[in-house]
């Protein structure tokens, strides 16, 4: 029981929860601040992940042009960001003039299109088909640019309790959380700015903002692009500790990010971070608990993987309860309710 709790606590600051937190921050800009119903965050993440991995795998500036690995890393991230901007424009142009639920359906459909295309057999040479891309194919640059590793300029930091920073996983985790903090500061600043006030105004009353002479369509598009870029970077962080697999970017991922966002509070700066962290903690805790209970024979002859599905049943029920009884999330303010859409 205690070891389940401790094991789950270990997940609190993992690179995965940072990726979830960053994806949730992006979704928070879409939904919490601009009121856009984006159900395709997994699509943005997939674009980011595949853009990064394919760029590193095929362009590979480190070996082709002799670039330093940190420069190739940044180039690959920029490539993924550009891809996600294009994706956001393609999504936004037909739908941002329409009612909210159209955007919901189109975004969820586009995310699935991305996944279907990524896993089709005919593109196996580029995307790896349904098997995805191996970690070794794209982790060269990121691993080589670890400043905490042996011989890195920050190696002296990685001693004592921080020793794990010199490992690849420690470096991924560090980098992920740095990016999350950058995103938090960016959102905090933006939402205090005139731009943020217009965005929030669009959420509250689109027509009122329009009557003030603002180009609502353009503002919505900017919000969609900004949140989408964060989703794409989250997708890159998501694949550092694992391999690229098309089915990990299924609709389930979008729904998990939504749950994380609503758990923390949609229209808050720190809510998505808290939600992402808590979501991973609770999920692994419930899973561990169910595994323990299964060990005691409570589920009879049922297999452990079958019993483990109850953790996701809990996610679904939690989402329902949350949205009905505390729609503003843990950190949210009831007055700034984000369900006006």
């Amino acid at each position: 029981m205690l070891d389940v709790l401790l094991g789950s606590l270990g997940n609190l600051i993992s690179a995965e929860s940072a990726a979830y937190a960053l994806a949730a921050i992006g979704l928070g800009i879409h939904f919490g601040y601009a009121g856009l119903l984006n159900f395709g965050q997994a699509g943005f993440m997939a674009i980011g992940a595949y853009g990064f991995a394919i760029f590193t795998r095929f362009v590979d500036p480190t070996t082709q042009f002799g670039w330093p690995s940190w420069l190739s890393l940044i180039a690959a991230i920029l490539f993924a960001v550009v891809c996600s901007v294009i994706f956001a424009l393609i999504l936004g142009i037909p739908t941002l003039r329409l009612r909210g639920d159209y955007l919901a359906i189109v975004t969820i459909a586009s995310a699935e299109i991305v996944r279907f295309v990524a896993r089709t057999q005919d593109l196996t040479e580029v995307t790896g088909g349904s098997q995805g891309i191996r970690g070794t194919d794209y982790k060269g640059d990121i691993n080589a640019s670890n400043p905490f590793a042996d011989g890195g300029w920050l190696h002296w930091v990685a001693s004592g309790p921080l020793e794990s920073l010199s490992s690849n996983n420690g470096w991924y985790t560090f980098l992920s959380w740095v990016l999350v903090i950058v995103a938090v500061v960016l959102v905090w600043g933006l939402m205090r700015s005139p731009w943020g006030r217009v965005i929030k105004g669009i959420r509250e009353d689109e027509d009122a903002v329009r009557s003030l002479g603002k180009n609502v369509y353009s503002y919505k598009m900017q919000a969609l692009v900004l949140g989408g870029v964060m989703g794409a970077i989250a997708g890159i962080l998501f694949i550092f500790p694992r391999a690229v697999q098309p089915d990990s970017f299924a609709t389930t991922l979008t729904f998990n990010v939504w749950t994380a966002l609503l758990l923390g509070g949609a229209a808050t700066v720190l809510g998505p971070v808290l939600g992402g962290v808590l979501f991973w903690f609770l999920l692994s805790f419930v899973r561990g608990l169910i595994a323990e209970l299964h060990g005691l024979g409570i589920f009879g002859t049922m297999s452990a993987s079958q019993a483990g599905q109850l953790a996701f049943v809990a996610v679904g029920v939690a989402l329902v309860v949350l949205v009905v009884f505390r729609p503003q999330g843990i950190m949210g303010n009831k007055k700034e309710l984000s369900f006006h859409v």
Partner: protein
Amino acid sequence: MEKTLRPARWWLAIPALLAALAVALGLGAPPADATAPPSDSGSAYQFQGIVRSDPQTPIAGVVINASGPDGFAGTATTAADGRWSIPTPGPGDYTVSIDETTVPDGLEVNPAHISRDFTLGTTSSQSVLFGIGAPGSFAPAPSAGSGDGGGDDGGSESNESTSSSSSFSWSRLGQRLFTGLNFGLLLALAAIGITLIFGTTGVNNFAHGEMVTFGGFAFFLLTTTLGLPVWVAIIGVLIASGAFGWLHDAAIFKPLRRRRVGLVQVLIVTIGLSIALRYFYQFLFGGGSSTLAVDNSARISFGTFNVNVSNIVSMVVSVVILGAVAYFLTRTRIGKATRAVSDNAGLAAASGINVDRVIRIVWVIAGMLTGLSGVLYAYFIGASVRWDMGFLILLLLFASVTLGGLGSAFGALVGALIIGIVTEVSTLWLPSDLRFAVALVILILVLLVRPQGVLGRKERIG
């Protein structure tokens, strides 16, 4: 002085009509022996697969290794049927490799498959395929072995559709059109369910796929577990699905209406409901697909192509039910009331229509239509059911509804037929694993030029 409507008897006609049709189906297809092996995997986290050479011959004695976190190393040797599995301690990153020296002489392993990284996360059982064939057969593009190696997160839908091929012939087109029509008609049943609910309550029900799955599993339980004849099972499915729809309204959506919960919140509630139900199905029935103990082997030959009798019966049933729904909506009193509520709930209430009652009836009808669609879909994918079968077509249902125009029942029919035929016919030119993507691309293109859909009205898009 509330004007009471006539007691609802009209809908009793639907099961009666179906029963008659199902008898025909049942006579043609008596239930086979109930010996469907549940294809569930045993261990919690594992890698598994079947090693075969190209013409599907299982290979015994091949050694497969897996290594993972905390120094985990596992090994397995394929059995006589080529099967192997390596249980692992838990989620994490693993490398799975095949020992080439144990592969029989004269065969070569696809170089891309010799050693690969996998992540066990939400997917607890990962199937790993190794492409094995004659030497040199993997030079340009690895073709074998990427069939459904993905997780069971919602990707690997099994369908009777054959693999794609670039050769075009009129007979293939005819076959695809026929299959597409069949698929479109069964989609239409469920899509009308969505659109009726959307029209009367404004709710986009993302848990609708789980209603489809519910129909499939109810049919599985009645025919395969209990061994009832098909026509009894179909009546049972209709009653159960109707009750399921009623339960949706009574337990969730009516209380939400009472609380005046916003539509976006309700939309997210349906997403939560969908997640909970879907994984509950997997909890109950496992992550694999289960074969129905029904006989669907009867075939009829039409000139150059063969069709399953069950597909023809499925189409006839769909057409009859769609006709009944059309009659209900346009001719019966309660159907007209439904359209009135759909048009303007406030006005309908003011003119004496009991809106809550109409909504309740709509949920029951939607449940029955969708449950039936689940049964037909189970036949369509080769008489099997799977925990996420409904979720896999949910987006196609939404595409149908949006294509036809949100809230328009006849639009949903048109949209579903377009989607069904497009998905199937596209496999003549495009890889079959992209056929759902094609349908979704068409949805987006239609929204670009005619956002209100084919039969929708302009003011709905707001």
